[in-house]
């Protein structure tokens, strides 16, 4: 198979893994306007919850579901116990970023205190690659791609055709107006945090399965790529996050296939900067920069 086609195939796999986390990140940001750096530690935490379940002999996909639910609960708790009180005090968006960084550090160090400074892997059956039209993919990767596609479709349809989805979109455009129109802001925000947490849980297990091993810092280590995908697509746009993930995934793999693999991440960020120079708001989104955070 041609190198280019192969790199494109691998790029799609990488994009599928990134897309779930990128959509989760951007969905939560678009509704709450909180640029949540602690998202990486939520991913790590849920990844370890899946590990605990998986270690007791439970199938990895059921473990992923448990991680998803825990991610939802953790995210809601994080917002109500930490972020919302600060927002109620009228903290600026910049100060909120600092709060999320501090929260992320707390979580990461707590996780490290519990699990120690070592690496973990899920128990999964040995994987062999299937040749799909010349592209070598494992069953696990195919399942992850399928999960990503289903989640993206559900997110798109949910945002477009459900009441809560409409409310989320309303909040993301104009919080005050949405509130004035009778949208139950707090409930919608809670649902958003829950949905974002669920996707963080799924995204973390998909990511940790792909990297084969993980530690107390893995979620945070990959946060920058997740944020890059979200920013590239347009922060606040779910569709944009998918496209952003695709661009990042393809850039990384094509660069590694043709040029110097040492510079694959550099290439991804060069693409990011070039796109933002042409479209500062990202590929899809209108900026939501003037809104305050919503807790």
């Amino acid at each position: 198979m041609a190198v280019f086609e192969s790199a494109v195939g691998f790029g799609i796999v990488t994009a599928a893994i990134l897309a779930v986390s990128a959509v989760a990140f951007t969905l939560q940001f678009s509704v709450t306007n909180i640029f949540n750096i602690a998202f990486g530690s939520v991913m790590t935490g849920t990844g370890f919850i899946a590990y605990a379940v998986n270690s007791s002999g439970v199938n990895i996909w059921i473990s992923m579901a448990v991680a998803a639910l825990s991610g939802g609960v953790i995210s809601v708790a994080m917002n109500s116990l930490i972020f919302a009180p600060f927002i109620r005090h009228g903290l600026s968006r910049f100060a909120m970023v600092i709060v999320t960084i501090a929260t992320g550090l707390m979580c990461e160090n707590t996780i490290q205190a519990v699990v120690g400074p070592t690496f973990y892997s899920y128990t999964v059956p040995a994987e062999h690659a299937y040749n799909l039209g010349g592209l070598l993919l494992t069953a696990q990767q195919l399942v992850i791609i399928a999960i990503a596609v289903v989640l993206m479709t559900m997110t798109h349809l949910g945002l477009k055709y459900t009441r809560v989805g409409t409310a989320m979109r309303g909040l993301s455009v104009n919080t005050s107006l949405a509130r004035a129109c009778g949208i139950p802001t707090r409930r919608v925000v809670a649902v958003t945090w829950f949905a974002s947490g669920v996707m963080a849980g799924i995204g973390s297990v998909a990511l940790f399965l792909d990297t084969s091993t993980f530690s107390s810092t893995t979620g945070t280590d990959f946060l920058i790529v997740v944020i890059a995908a979200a920013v590239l697509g347009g922060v606040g746009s779910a569709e944009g996050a998918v496209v952003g993930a695709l661009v990042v995934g393809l850039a990384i793999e094509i660069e590694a296939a043709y040029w110097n693999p040492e510079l694959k991440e550099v290439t991804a960020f060069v693409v990011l900067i070039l796109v933002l120079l042409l479209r500062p708001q990202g590929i899809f989104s209108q900026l939501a920069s003037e809104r305050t955070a919503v807790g």
Partner: protein
Amino acid sequence: MKRETGRRLIGKSDAKKIRSSVLVASLGVTALVLGATPAMGAFRGQDAARVARSRSGSIEIAIFHDYSGPNAAYGPEAGAGCFPAERVINAAGGVLGHQLTCVPTDAKGDPADAVPAANRLIASSSSLVGVLGGGSDDATAVVPLFQQAHIPIFSTTGQSTFSHSTFSYFWRILSPDSAQGSAMAAAAKKLGFTKVATLFGNDAAAQGSAPSAIAGVRKLHLNLVISQTIAIGQLSYRSEVQKLASAKPQAIISEADPQTSATYLSELSQLGTVPALITDPVSQEPSWRKAVIGAIGKSKLNANDYAVVAYSSMTSDAYKTYITALLASAKQVPQPSQWEADLYSVADYDSVVIMALAMDLAHSVSPSVYNSYITKVTNPSKGAVVVHTYAEGKAAIAKGKRIQYVGAVGSIVFDRWHNAGQGFAIERYKSGNWALSSILTSSEIKAAA
């Protein structure tokens, strides 16, 4: 309608409330971050005790390695050398009447954090007499600081910069990375591989041995089918893996961190086969093995891994003393048996014993005094008694004899730049232990250098 903005106007009382909240949160966060990591908790707890001990005349060796971040295993690894040494030294009555204490200090993993941490360490401890520290990531930044403070630092960095440096307080027991790279190439030749690939991470630690490994492969006229330098910590290496697999090497000479190695080898394994792996001592570290075993399985790793490490006789008296002390140090070293074959831990153990013997010989715990006695307890000299433990060395010095300490890593002979360096051997993991497969002769390594 009035548009809400990020800069919402707030009243004075609100501002006060916010300031209080931020202050309370900041204090809470600081407390939690400092208290979260167990190693750091232990470190903090020792601070008060340290002051008390120094008053009663104890001396301190700082374990200046990472206790947080991605390389948080480095600190416990060095601790697995320091605490057993502390045990044997204090059991023999301490150094010139002083009890010796190992003090964990978080170097935090990068020079930007390591420099202030080193400055704090130097400024805050009056009883600091030596340091274990300066890994490949931060050695160039922190070694000059300890040099300026006249405190000996025993480093595990592999950087070639220190092979001919003039830092008189810098000491290195293990061979530099350049020698390691040549030994890995020599190992490929010795094992009979003719088609070889090289795979190195792009971090400072791995890049230390990459140039000499590649040069060695060429010098030995092996067929270098592909040479890859990969960005560490990536989500995937599928494109790189496919290129390497297409080149069909019989063996891969490799050094990369645990996460990178695991991801790469897992993807390589999915393509069907994993060639022989010729790795460096990092592959003997528990964290590396745990990560890679999780990725490709224990049997596949053990069947393919050939670790090229500094040669040390695991049957020597010095090594046996180390193991006994290590296993007895479970209180300070959790799961001590995991470090038994870890060369860095063994070298750190020898480092502390050497510093203690040098103090005995110098009749002084002053770092600027005993530093010049270090080679006098390690390098061979006429009439010197060979000793393998601290107790033996101390007794010989008390009788006025010259000594040569042959440690757990074997003979340690420092050159004028304070580099020791050992011979190399190929080791394989069999039946739960690392076993010597073959010794690389100096002519074999020289041919690759």
